[in-house]
Protein backbone atom coordinates (compact mmCIF):
# COMPACT_ATOMS: atom_id res chain seq x y z
CA UNK A 1 0.00 0.00 0.00
CA UNK A 2 2.83 2.35 0.89
CA UNK A 3 4.52 1.59 -2.44
CA UNK A 4 1.34 2.38 -4.39
CA UNK A 5 0.92 5.65 -2.49
CA UNK A 6 4.55 6.65 -3.13
CA UNK A 7 4.26 5.66 -6.80
CA UNK A 8 1.19 7.88 -7.25
CA UNK A 9 2.81 10.84 -5.49
CA UNK A 10 5.91 10.50 -7.64
CA UNK A 11 3.78 10.27 -10.79
CA UNK A 12 2.11 13.57 -9.87
CA UNK A 13 5.50 15.10 -9.09
CA UNK A 14 6.77 14.42 -12.64
CA UNK A 15 4.61 16.98 -14.53
CA UNK A 16 4.75 19.25 -11.48
CA UNK A 17 8.56 19.31 -11.64
CA UNK A 18 8.41 20.19 -15.36
CA UNK A 19 5.96 23.06 -14.68
CA UNK A 20 8.14 24.28 -11.81
CA UNK A 21 11.47 24.10 -13.64
CA UNK A 22 9.94 26.12 -16.48
CA UNK A 23 9.13 28.93 -14.02
CA UNK A 24 12.70 29.14 -12.69
CA UNK A 25 14.64 31.73 -14.69
CA UNK A 26 17.99 30.88 -16.26
CA UNK A 27 21.08 31.43 -14.15
CA UNK A 28 23.57 33.97 -15.56
CA UNK A 29 26.02 34.08 -17.30
CA UNK A 30 25.02 31.33 -19.77
CA UNK A 31 21.36 31.14 -18.66
CA UNK A 32 21.71 27.60 -17.30
CA UNK A 33 18.34 26.01 -16.50
CA UNK A 34 17.81 24.00 -13.34
CA UNK A 35 16.43 20.50 -14.04
CA UNK A 36 14.06 19.08 -11.42
CA UNK A 37 12.74 16.07 -13.32
CA UNK A 38 15.98 14.03 -12.99
CA UNK A 39 15.92 14.60 -9.21
CA UNK A 40 12.35 13.25 -8.95
CA UNK A 41 13.17 10.40 -11.36
CA UNK A 42 16.21 9.38 -9.34
CA UNK A 43 14.26 9.37 -6.09
CA UNK A 44 11.53 7.24 -7.65
CA UNK A 45 13.77 4.56 -9.10
CA UNK A 46 15.81 4.31 -5.91
CA UNK A 47 12.81 4.18 -3.58
CA UNK A 48 10.49 1.87 -5.52
CA UNK A 49 10.86 -1.89 -6.04
CA UNK A 50 12.19 -3.01 -9.45
CA UNK A 51 8.97 -3.35 -11.50
CA UNK A 52 7.27 -0.16 -10.25
CA UNK A 53 10.64 1.59 -10.69
CA UNK A 54 10.74 0.53 -14.35
CA UNK A 55 7.18 1.76 -14.91
CA UNK A 56 8.09 5.02 -13.19
CA UNK A 57 11.17 5.35 -15.41
CA UNK A 58 8.94 4.85 -18.44
CA UNK A 59 6.61 7.62 -17.20
CA UNK A 60 9.60 9.93 -16.67
CA UNK A 61 10.80 9.13 -20.20
CA UNK A 62 7.39 10.00 -21.66
CA UNK A 63 7.18 13.30 -19.73
CA UNK A 64 10.75 14.30 -20.61
CA UNK A 65 10.33 13.15 -24.22
CA UNK A 66 7.09 15.07 -24.72
CA UNK A 67 8.61 18.29 -23.40
CA UNK A 68 11.42 17.91 -25.95
CA UNK A 69 9.39 16.99 -29.05
CA UNK A 70 9.55 19.83 -31.57
CA UNK A 71 7.51 19.54 -34.72
CA UNK A 72 9.34 20.46 -37.93
CA UNK A 73 6.84 20.74 -40.79
CA UNK A 74 4.47 18.46 -38.90
CA UNK A 75 7.14 15.85 -38.15
CA UNK A 76 8.79 15.46 -34.74
CA UNK A 77 12.56 15.97 -34.75
CA UNK A 78 13.02 13.34 -32.01
CA UNK A 79 10.82 10.42 -31.02
CA UNK A 80 10.46 8.80 -27.60
CA UNK A 81 12.90 5.93 -28.21
CA UNK A 82 16.00 7.68 -26.87
CA UNK A 83 14.34 9.00 -23.67
CA UNK A 84 12.86 5.52 -23.03
CA UNK A 85 16.23 3.79 -23.46
CA UNK A 86 17.97 6.47 -21.38
CA UNK A 87 15.59 6.41 -18.42
CA UNK A 88 15.17 2.62 -18.35
CA UNK A 89 18.96 2.22 -18.49
CA UNK A 90 19.47 4.58 -15.59
CA UNK A 91 16.62 2.93 -13.64
CA UNK A 92 18.38 -0.45 -13.85
CA UNK A 93 21.76 1.05 -12.87
CA UNK A 94 20.27 2.91 -9.90
CA UNK A 95 18.31 -0.16 -8.75
CA UNK A 96 21.56 -2.14 -8.73
CA UNK A 97 23.28 0.67 -6.82
CA UNK A 98 20.40 0.76 -4.34
CA UNK A 99 20.74 -2.99 -3.76
CA UNK A 100 24.50 -2.69 -3.37
CA UNK A 101 24.05 -0.07 -0.64
CA UNK A 102 21.24 -2.16 0.97
CA UNK A 103 18.51 0.43 0.55
CA UNK A 104 18.17 4.01 -0.41
CA UNK A 105 20.70 6.54 0.85
CA UNK A 106 20.63 10.31 0.47
CA UNK A 107 24.19 10.39 -0.87
CA UNK A 108 23.25 7.92 -3.59
CA UNK A 109 20.20 10.00 -4.50
CA UNK A 110 22.24 13.21 -4.70
CA UNK A 111 25.04 11.66 -6.76
CA UNK A 112 22.55 9.79 -8.97
CA UNK A 113 20.51 12.96 -9.62
CA UNK A 114 23.65 14.82 -10.60
CA UNK A 115 24.87 12.01 -12.87
CA UNK A 116 21.45 11.63 -14.53
CA UNK A 117 21.22 15.40 -15.13
CA UNK A 118 24.75 15.54 -16.53
CA UNK A 119 24.21 12.58 -18.85
CA UNK A 120 20.72 13.78 -19.85
CA UNK A 121 21.91 17.23 -20.93
CA UNK A 122 25.14 15.93 -22.44
CA UNK A 123 23.24 13.19 -24.26
CA UNK A 124 20.67 15.66 -25.61
CA UNK A 125 23.49 17.84 -26.93
CA UNK A 126 25.22 14.90 -28.61
CA UNK A 127 21.96 13.69 -30.20
CA UNK A 128 21.23 17.19 -31.53
CA UNK A 129 24.77 17.38 -32.93
CA UNK A 130 24.34 13.99 -34.60
CA UNK A 131 20.95 14.97 -36.08
CA UNK A 132 21.73 18.52 -37.19
CA UNK A 133 25.47 18.23 -37.81
CA UNK A 134 28.34 20.21 -36.30
CA UNK A 135 29.81 20.01 -32.83
CA UNK A 136 29.91 23.55 -31.40
CA UNK A 137 31.36 22.64 -28.01
CA UNK A 138 32.16 25.87 -26.13
CA UNK A 139 32.08 27.27 -22.62
CA UNK A 140 28.31 27.96 -22.84
CA UNK A 141 27.61 24.31 -23.63
CA UNK A 142 29.86 23.14 -20.79
CA UNK A 143 28.23 25.53 -18.32
CA UNK A 144 24.73 24.54 -19.43
CA UNK A 145 25.58 20.92 -18.77
CA UNK A 146 27.63 21.22 -15.59
CA UNK A 147 25.70 23.87 -13.63
CA UNK A 148 22.32 22.02 -13.67
CA UNK A 149 24.18 18.84 -12.60
CA UNK A 150 25.73 20.72 -9.67
CA UNK A 151 22.33 22.23 -8.83
CA UNK A 152 20.78 18.73 -8.83
CA UNK A 153 23.44 17.62 -6.34
CA UNK A 154 22.34 20.40 -3.99
CA UNK A 155 18.58 20.08 -4.56
CA UNK A 156 18.35 16.28 -4.25
CA UNK A 157 18.72 16.15 -0.44
CA UNK A 158 15.76 18.54 -0.09
CA UNK A 159 13.45 16.13 -1.95
CA UNK A 160 14.96 13.21 -0.04
CA UNK A 161 14.20 14.90 3.29
CA UNK A 162 10.65 15.71 2.20
CA UNK A 163 9.78 12.19 1.00
CA UNK A 164 12.06 9.80 2.89
CA UNK A 165 9.37 8.76 5.40
CA UNK A 166 7.28 7.40 2.54
CA UNK A 167 10.00 5.08 1.29
CA UNK A 168 9.04 1.42 1.89
CA UNK A 169 11.69 -0.25 4.05
CA UNK A 170 13.04 -3.52 2.68
CA UNK A 171 13.59 -6.58 4.90
CA UNK A 172 17.29 -6.56 3.97
CA UNK A 173 17.63 -2.99 5.18
CA UNK A 174 15.97 -3.87 8.49
CA UNK A 175 18.28 -6.85 8.92
CA UNK A 176 21.27 -4.71 8.07
CA UNK A 177 20.23 -2.10 10.64
CA UNK A 178 19.87 -4.81 13.30
Amino acid sequence: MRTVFLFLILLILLPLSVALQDQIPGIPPALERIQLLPVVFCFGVLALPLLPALFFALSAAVVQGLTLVQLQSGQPEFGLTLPVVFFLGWAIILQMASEATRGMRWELHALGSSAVTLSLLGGEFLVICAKRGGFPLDMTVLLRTAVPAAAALLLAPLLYLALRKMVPISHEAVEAAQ
Partner: protein
Amino acid sequence: MKKIQIAALVALVAAVAFLCLMGGGVLSELQSRFFGILSPLTRSGHAVSSSLGSLGKDLMSLDQLQSEYDRVLAENRRLRAENNGLRDLQQDNDHLRQVLGYRERSSFRLIPAAVLSHDGNAWWSTVRINRGSRDGIAPDMPVITDRGLVGKTAAVSGDLCEVVLVTDENCKVAAKVEGTHEQGISSGSRAPQGELQLAFLSKLADLQPGQKVYTAGVSGGVFPSGIALGTVKSFHARELDGEAILEPSADLGSLEEVFVVTGAK
Protein backbone atom coordinates in the same frame (compact mmCIF):
# COMPACT_ATOMS: atom_id res chain seq x y z
CA MET B 1 8.11 -15.17 -10.23
CA LYS B 2 4.43 -14.51 -9.50
CA LYS B 3 1.85 -14.35 -12.29
CA ILE B 4 1.13 -10.69 -11.59
CA GLN B 5 4.82 -9.84 -11.96
CA ILE B 6 4.99 -11.65 -15.29
CA ALA B 7 1.89 -9.78 -16.47
CA ALA B 8 3.42 -6.47 -15.36
CA LEU B 9 6.65 -7.29 -17.19
CA VAL B 10 4.75 -8.10 -20.38
CA ALA B 11 2.79 -4.84 -20.04
CA LEU B 12 6.06 -2.95 -19.58
CA VAL B 13 7.61 -4.48 -22.70
CA ALA B 14 4.44 -3.73 -24.68
CA ALA B 15 4.43 -0.11 -23.46
CA VAL B 16 8.11 0.31 -24.40
CA ALA B 17 7.47 -1.14 -27.87
CA PHE B 18 4.43 1.11 -28.37
CA LEU B 19 6.33 4.26 -27.31
CA CYS B 20 9.36 3.45 -29.46
CA LEU B 21 7.34 2.63 -32.59
CA MET B 22 4.94 5.57 -32.25
CA GLY B 23 4.43 7.61 -35.44
CA GLY B 24 4.74 11.39 -35.75
CA GLY B 25 0.98 12.01 -35.79
CA VAL B 26 0.31 9.99 -32.63
CA LEU B 27 3.27 11.64 -30.91
CA SER B 28 1.99 15.09 -31.82
CA GLU B 29 -1.47 14.19 -30.48
CA LEU B 30 0.09 12.79 -27.30
CA GLN B 31 2.12 15.97 -26.85
CA SER B 32 -1.01 18.08 -27.30
CA ARG B 33 -2.76 16.05 -24.59
CA PHE B 34 0.27 16.31 -22.33
CA PHE B 35 0.22 20.11 -22.70
CA GLY B 36 -3.46 19.95 -21.77
CA ILE B 37 -2.44 18.24 -18.49
CA LEU B 38 0.44 20.66 -18.00
CA SER B 39 -1.71 23.74 -18.67
CA PRO B 40 -3.29 24.18 -15.18
CA LEU B 41 0.10 23.53 -13.53
CA THR B 42 1.84 26.06 -15.78
CA ARG B 43 -0.90 28.65 -15.21
CA SER B 44 -0.73 28.17 -11.43
CA GLY B 45 3.07 28.40 -11.53
CA HIS B 46 2.83 31.59 -13.61
CA ALA B 47 0.34 33.11 -11.13
CA VAL B 48 2.62 32.31 -8.18
CA SER B 49 5.77 33.63 -9.88
CA SER B 50 3.89 36.79 -10.96
CA SER B 51 2.80 37.36 -7.36
CA LEU B 52 6.38 36.89 -6.16
CA GLY B 53 7.60 39.24 -8.91
CA SER B 54 5.18 41.97 -7.87
CA LEU B 55 6.30 41.50 -4.26
CA GLY B 56 9.85 42.17 -5.42
CA LYS B 57 8.68 45.29 -7.25
CA ASP B 58 7.01 46.54 -4.08
CA LEU B 59 10.22 46.01 -2.12
CA MET B 60 12.15 47.94 -4.76
CA SER B 61 9.62 50.74 -4.52
CA LEU B 62 10.20 50.92 -0.78
CA ASP B 63 13.93 51.22 -1.42
CA GLN B 64 13.27 54.01 -3.86
CA LEU B 65 10.96 55.63 -1.34
CA GLN B 66 13.65 55.51 1.30
CA SER B 67 16.14 57.30 -0.95
CA GLU B 68 13.49 59.86 -1.87
CA TYR B 69 12.77 60.39 1.79
CA ASP B 70 16.43 61.10 2.52
CA ARG B 71 16.65 63.57 -0.32
CA VAL B 72 13.42 65.46 0.30
CA LEU B 73 12.67 65.73 4.01
CA ALA B 74 9.53 67.79 3.60
CA GLU B 75 7.39 64.94 2.28
CA ASN B 76 6.29 62.09 4.50
CA ARG B 77 6.55 58.36 3.79
CA ARG B 78 2.87 57.68 3.32
CA LEU B 79 2.53 60.24 0.54
CA ARG B 80 5.59 58.82 -1.17
CA ALA B 81 4.16 55.32 -1.13
CA GLU B 82 0.90 56.60 -2.60
CA ASN B 83 2.71 58.47 -5.34
CA ASN B 84 4.80 55.45 -6.10
CA GLY B 85 1.72 53.26 -6.33
CA LEU B 86 0.12 55.75 -8.72
CA ARG B 87 3.27 55.82 -10.81
CA ASP B 88 3.18 52.02 -11.15
CA LEU B 89 -0.45 52.23 -12.22
CA GLN B 90 0.44 54.94 -14.75
CA GLN B 91 3.20 52.75 -16.20
CA ASP B 92 0.83 49.80 -16.45
CA ASN B 93 -1.75 52.03 -18.10
CA ASP B 94 0.76 53.45 -20.62
CA HIS B 95 2.02 49.97 -21.43
CA LEU B 96 -1.47 48.57 -21.99
CA ARG B 97 -2.42 51.58 -24.16
CA GLN B 98 0.72 51.02 -26.22
CA VAL B 99 -0.09 47.32 -26.66
CA LEU B 100 -3.74 48.04 -27.54
CA GLY B 101 -2.67 50.76 -29.96
CA TYR B 102 -0.33 48.37 -31.73
CA ARG B 103 -3.08 45.79 -32.11
CA GLU B 104 -5.34 48.43 -33.73
CA ARG B 105 -2.58 49.86 -35.94
CA SER B 106 -1.32 46.50 -37.13
CA SER B 107 -2.29 45.25 -40.58
CA PHE B 108 -2.48 41.67 -39.25
CA ARG B 109 -5.26 39.86 -37.45
CA LEU B 110 -3.72 39.41 -34.01
CA ILE B 111 -4.62 37.30 -31.01
CA PRO B 112 -3.11 38.70 -27.80
CA ALA B 113 -1.52 36.15 -25.46
CA ALA B 114 0.38 36.12 -22.17
CA VAL B 115 3.65 34.24 -21.77
CA LEU B 116 3.19 31.63 -19.02
CA SER B 117 6.63 30.08 -18.86
CA HIS B 118 10.00 29.78 -20.53
CA ASP B 119 11.01 26.26 -21.49
CA GLY B 120 13.44 24.85 -18.97
CA ASN B 121 15.43 22.85 -21.54
CA ALA B 122 19.03 23.79 -22.19
CA TRP B 123 19.21 23.36 -25.97
CA TRP B 124 15.82 24.67 -27.05
CA SER B 125 14.52 28.21 -26.86
CA THR B 126 10.76 28.15 -26.43
CA VAL B 127 8.03 29.76 -24.34
CA ARG B 128 4.49 28.67 -23.56
CA ILE B 129 1.55 31.04 -24.03
CA ASN B 130 -2.01 30.98 -22.70
CA ARG B 131 -3.73 30.49 -26.06
CA GLY B 132 -4.43 27.30 -27.95
CA SER B 133 -6.57 25.65 -30.58
CA ARG B 134 -9.75 26.92 -28.86
CA ASP B 135 -8.60 30.47 -29.71
CA GLY B 136 -7.90 29.58 -33.33
CA ILE B 137 -4.17 28.98 -32.92
CA ALA B 138 -2.55 26.37 -35.16
CA PRO B 139 1.08 25.25 -35.57
CA ASP B 140 3.41 27.46 -37.65
CA MET B 141 1.77 30.82 -37.00
CA PRO B 142 4.05 33.85 -36.53
CA VAL B 143 4.26 35.36 -33.05
CA ILE B 144 5.22 39.04 -32.64
CA THR B 145 5.31 41.91 -30.17
CA ASP B 146 4.97 45.62 -30.89
CA ARG B 147 8.80 45.66 -31.24
CA GLY B 148 9.27 42.79 -33.65
CA LEU B 149 9.27 39.09 -34.40
CA VAL B 150 9.24 36.62 -31.48
CA GLY B 151 8.98 33.24 -33.21
CA LYS B 152 6.38 30.77 -34.43
CA THR B 153 3.85 28.48 -32.81
CA ALA B 154 4.71 24.78 -32.57
CA ALA B 155 2.78 22.28 -30.43
CA VAL B 156 -0.77 23.46 -29.71
CA SER B 157 -3.20 22.09 -27.14
CA GLY B 158 -6.68 23.40 -26.25
CA ASP B 159 -5.57 26.36 -24.17
CA LEU B 160 -1.76 26.25 -24.26
CA CYS B 161 0.70 26.66 -27.06
CA GLU B 162 4.45 26.33 -27.40
CA VAL B 163 6.25 29.10 -29.27
CA VAL B 164 9.68 28.43 -30.79
CA LEU B 165 11.66 31.66 -30.42
CA VAL B 166 13.74 33.14 -33.23
CA THR B 167 16.82 32.44 -31.09
CA ASP B 168 16.21 28.67 -31.41
CA GLU B 169 18.40 26.86 -33.92
CA ASN B 170 15.29 25.34 -35.50
CA CYS B 171 13.54 28.67 -36.16
CA LYS B 172 14.86 29.81 -39.53
CA VAL B 173 13.66 33.13 -40.92
CA ALA B 174 14.28 34.58 -44.39
CA ALA B 175 15.40 38.16 -43.78
CA LYS B 176 16.49 41.29 -45.65
CA VAL B 177 18.74 44.11 -44.49
CA GLU B 178 17.34 47.64 -44.55
CA GLY B 179 18.80 49.91 -47.23
CA THR B 180 20.56 47.09 -49.10
CA HIS B 181 19.67 44.23 -51.44
CA GLU B 182 21.14 41.74 -48.99
CA GLN B 183 18.98 38.77 -48.04
CA GLY B 184 19.87 35.85 -45.80
CA ILE B 185 18.55 33.25 -43.42
CA SER B 186 18.49 33.98 -39.74
CA SER B 187 18.56 31.37 -36.98
CA GLY B 188 19.58 31.02 -33.37
CA SER B 189 22.38 28.94 -31.95
CA ARG B 190 22.47 25.44 -30.43
CA ALA B 191 22.92 26.87 -26.96
CA PRO B 192 20.71 29.98 -27.40
CA GLN B 193 22.15 33.09 -25.79
CA GLY B 194 19.88 35.76 -27.19
CA GLU B 195 21.64 36.55 -30.47
CA LEU B 196 20.74 35.67 -34.05
CA GLN B 197 23.02 34.66 -36.90
CA LEU B 198 22.08 35.97 -40.33
CA ALA B 199 23.88 33.69 -42.78
CA PHE B 200 24.09 33.34 -46.60
CA LEU B 201 24.76 37.06 -47.12
CA SER B 202 27.12 38.24 -49.81
CA LYS B 203 30.78 38.12 -48.75
CA LEU B 204 31.16 41.71 -49.90
CA ALA B 205 28.07 43.00 -48.07
CA ASP B 206 28.83 46.35 -46.47
CA LEU B 207 26.73 46.01 -43.33
CA GLN B 208 27.13 48.49 -40.51
CA PRO B 209 26.19 48.01 -36.85
CA GLY B 210 22.75 49.44 -36.18
CA GLN B 211 21.22 48.58 -39.56
CA LYS B 212 17.71 47.13 -39.22
CA VAL B 213 16.80 43.66 -40.48
CA TYR B 214 13.25 42.70 -41.47
CA THR B 215 11.54 39.47 -42.47
CA ALA B 216 11.71 38.89 -46.22
CA GLY B 217 8.40 37.03 -46.47
CA VAL B 218 9.15 34.26 -48.96
CA SER B 219 6.13 32.68 -50.64
CA GLY B 220 4.84 29.64 -48.80
CA GLY B 221 6.84 30.61 -45.71
CA VAL B 222 5.59 31.12 -42.17
CA PHE B 223 6.54 34.77 -41.66
CA PRO B 224 5.00 37.68 -43.57
CA SER B 225 7.24 40.38 -45.03
CA GLY B 226 8.30 43.53 -43.19
CA ILE B 227 8.30 42.45 -39.54
CA ALA B 228 11.29 43.81 -37.61
CA LEU B 229 13.65 40.95 -36.80
CA GLY B 230 16.72 42.58 -35.33
CA THR B 231 19.59 45.03 -35.59
CA VAL B 232 23.02 44.28 -37.01
CA LYS B 233 25.67 44.03 -34.28
CA SER B 234 28.59 42.86 -36.41
CA PHE B 235 29.40 41.39 -39.80
CA HIS B 236 32.16 39.05 -40.92
CA ALA B 237 32.92 37.39 -44.23
CA ARG B 238 33.30 33.59 -44.20
CA GLU B 239 34.80 31.29 -46.80
CA LEU B 240 31.69 31.13 -48.98
CA ASP B 241 29.31 33.74 -47.61
CA GLY B 242 28.93 36.58 -45.13
CA GLU B 243 27.38 36.32 -41.68
CA ALA B 244 25.93 39.05 -39.50
CA ILE B 245 25.22 38.80 -35.79
CA LEU B 246 21.89 40.39 -34.89
CA GLU B 247 20.36 41.70 -31.72
CA PRO B 248 16.66 40.63 -31.79
CA SER B 249 14.18 43.52 -31.99
CA ALA B 250 11.83 41.97 -29.44
CA ASP B 251 13.12 41.64 -25.89
CA LEU B 252 12.98 37.84 -25.73
CA GLY B 253 14.42 37.63 -22.23
CA SER B 254 11.47 39.35 -20.58
CA LEU B 255 8.50 38.54 -22.76
CA GLU B 256 5.15 39.10 -21.07
CA GLU B 257 2.59 39.82 -23.78
CA VAL B 258 2.79 38.65 -27.38
CA PHE B 259 0.48 38.51 -30.40
CA VAL B 260 -0.16 35.50 -32.59
CA VAL B 261 -0.65 36.46 -36.24
CA THR B 262 -3.61 34.51 -37.60
CA GLY B 263 -3.78 36.27 -40.99
CA ALA B 264 -4.03 39.62 -42.72
CA LYS B 265 -6.81 42.11 -41.94
